[in-house]
C-alpha cells in the first residue's frame, strides 16, 4: 500500500516539478546573460494561460493533429514515472527498464513528428525531418549507454543499476565516465537545447522542435510544452539517479530517508539545471550539418564505454 502511495507521489512530483525546473533554467540563463529574467514560476502561469485559451485547429488538420498532444504528453509522463527520483521503492520498479524508456520517448517523438507534418505547412515538415535526423542518431547512442550500464550492473532496470552503484562494487570506472558523457550529449539533443536546437528561437532556419509545434495553440500547445518540460526533468533525474545515486532512498527505508532522498533529488535537479544553463550560455548553436558529428560522437563514446568494459575485465 505504502509503495503505491509513493508511486503516486512520484508520478505527480515529476509533473509538478517540471515547469519549475524549466523556469529555473530560464532564470539562470537570463541572469548569466545580464537580464533580470522572469520568475521561475512563470512556466506555470504560461501553462495556465494556455489552458484557458481556445484551441485553434487548422482546416487541413486530421484527428491525428488533435490526438498527438495527448499521446505525446502521456508517453513522456509514463517515461518519467519509470525513473526513480527520490526512492527506488516503487511498484513499477520491476517493469521500469531503460529500453522501455527509450521506446516511450521514441513514441512521443514519432507522434510529435507526425503532428508536425499533418497540417502540411512547410515548417512542420522541415522540423519533423530534422527531428527524425536527430532521433536516428541520438537513439542508438542512448541504447549504447544503456548497454554499457547494463553490462556493468547486470540489469537494464534503473533501480537495479542504482542499487549496484550504491553497493560500492563499482569503482572509478572509465566506462561509467564515458557513458555519462554520451548520455549528457544525448540529453542535450533530445531536449532540443543549444547547441543542437534553441528552445527559445522562432527563427525559421534554426528551429527544430518549435517548428513542429508551430501550429498548436491553447490546451494542445500547453500539453506539448508540458511534455517538453517533463522530458527535461526526466533526463536530469535520469543522469542524477544513474551517475550520482547517493542519498536516494532504498527499499525498506523510513520516512526520514524518504525526506532526505527528496531533498537530495531536488538539489541534484536544480544543480544540473544550473549546469545546463551555464553550458548553454557558453556555447553557440551548431549548424544542422554538424549534428551528425556531435551525435555520432555520443554514439562512439557509448561504444567506447562498452569496449572499455572488456579491457578492465568488468564483464
Amino acid at each position, binding site marked *: 500500500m505504502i509503495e503505491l502511495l509513493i508511486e503516486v507521489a512520484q508520478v505527480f512530483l515529476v509533473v509538478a516539478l517540471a515547469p519549475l525546473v524549466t523556469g529555473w533554467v530560464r532564470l539562470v540563463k537570463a541572469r548569466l546573460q545580464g537580464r533580470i529574467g522572469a520568475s521561475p514560476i512563470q512556466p506555470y502561469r504560461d501553462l495556465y494561460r494556455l489552458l484557458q485559451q481556445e484551441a485553434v485547429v487548422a482546416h487541413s488538420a486530421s484527428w491525428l493533429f488533435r490526438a498527438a498532444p495527448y499521446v505525446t504528453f502521456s508517453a513522456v509522463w509514463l517515461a518519467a514515472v519509470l525513473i526513480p527520483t527520490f526512492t527506488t521503492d516503487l511498484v513499477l520498479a520491476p517493469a521500469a527498464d531503460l529500453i522501455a524508456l527509450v521506446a516511450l520517448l521514441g513514441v512521443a517523438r514519432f507522434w510529435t513528428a507526425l503532428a508536425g507534418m499533418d497540417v502540411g505547412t512547410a515548417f512542420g515538415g522541415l522540423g519533423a525531418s530534422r527531428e527524425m535526423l536527430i532521433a536516428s542518431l541520438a537513439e542508438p547512442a542512448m541504447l549504447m549507454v544503456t548497454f554499457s550500464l547494463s553490462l556493468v550492473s547486470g540489469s537494464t532496470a534503473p533501480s537495479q543499476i542504482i542499487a549496484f552503484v550504491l553497493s*560500492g562494487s563499482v*569503482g*572509478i*570506472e*572509465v566506462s561509467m*565516465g*564515458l557513458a555519462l558523457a554520451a548520455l549528457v550529449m544525448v540529453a542535450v539533443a533530445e531536449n532540443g537545447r543549444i547547441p543542437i536546437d534553441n528552445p527559445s528561437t522562432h527563427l525559421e532556419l534554426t528551429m527544430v522542435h518549435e517548428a513542429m509545434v508551430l501550429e498548436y495553440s491553447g490546451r494542445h500547445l500547453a500539453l506539448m510544452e508540458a511534455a517538453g518540460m517533463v522530458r527535461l526533468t526526466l533526463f536530469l533525474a535520469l543522469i542524477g539517479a544513474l551517475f550520482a545515486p547517493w542519498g536516494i532512498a532504498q527499499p525498506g527505508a523510513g520516512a526520514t530517508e524518504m525526506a532526505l532522498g527528496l531533498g537530495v533529488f531536488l538539489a541534484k535537479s536544480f544543480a544540473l539545471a544550473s549546469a545546463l544553463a551555464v553550458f548553454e550560455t557558453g556555447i553557440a548553436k551548431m549548424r544542422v550539418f554538424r549534428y*551528425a*558529428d556531435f551525435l*555520432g*560522437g555520443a554514439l*562512439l563514446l557509448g*561504444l*567506447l564505454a562498452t*569496449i*572499455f568494459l*572488456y*579491457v*578492465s*575485465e568488468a564483464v
Partner: protein
Amino acid sequence: MGAGQISYDVAHLIGATVLMAGLQLLYQRRLFAVINTFAFQALALAAAAGWQAHVQDAPHLYVTAGIALVFKAMIVPFALHWLIEKLGIHRSVETAMSIGWTMMAGVALVALSILLVLPVTANAAALTRESLALAMSVVLIGLLMMITRRNAVTQVVGFMALENGLILAAVSAKGMPLVVEISVAFSVLVAMTLFGIFFFRIRERFDTLDINDVETYRGDRQ
C-alpha cells in the same frame, strides 16, 4: 576497495583521458582548437606520469611529468600559436576524410589495439595490460591524424599525439629506466619537425632555404 584498486582506477581514468583527448583531436575543425586539445592531452599525460611516479615510487618519472608539462603542454602549444599567427596559416583544418569517418576509424583503431594487446599480454598484470591497450590506441590515433589531415601543423600535432602515446606506454610499464632519455630525444625530434615547418614556409615564400637570399628581402638594407 583497497588502495591498489584505487591506484589502478585512477591510472586507468587518466589513461582514458589521454585517449579521449586523442579522439577529441580528430573531432576539431579549427587549428587553435586542435592545439588547445593537444595541450590538454599533454596535461593529462603529465598527470599520468606523475601518478605512475607516485604509485611506482619512481622519482625519475617526475622528470618525465615535468617535461610533458612544461615542454608539451606549454611551450609547444605557444610556439604553434605563434607560428600560425606569424605565418598566416589558414586556420581551418583541412581533412582528407570527413570528420565522422575519421572518428569511426579512430574507435575502430581503439578496438583493434585492445584486441591486439589483450591476447599478447595475457600473463602481464592487469594495470600494464590496460595501459598498454590505451597507449597503443593513442599511438594509432596519432598516426590516423597524420594520415587524414592535410595541413602541416595538424600533421605535427598528430605526430606529437603519437609520441604522447609512446610515453604513456613507457611510464605505465614498470622498470623502464630510459623513459627520461626517450622523452628528451623525442622532444628534440618534435622541435626539429617544428623547424621543419618553418623552413618549409620560408622555402615556399622565397623558393630557397639559403639565408643569403632571404636577407635581400629585408627592407632595412636600403
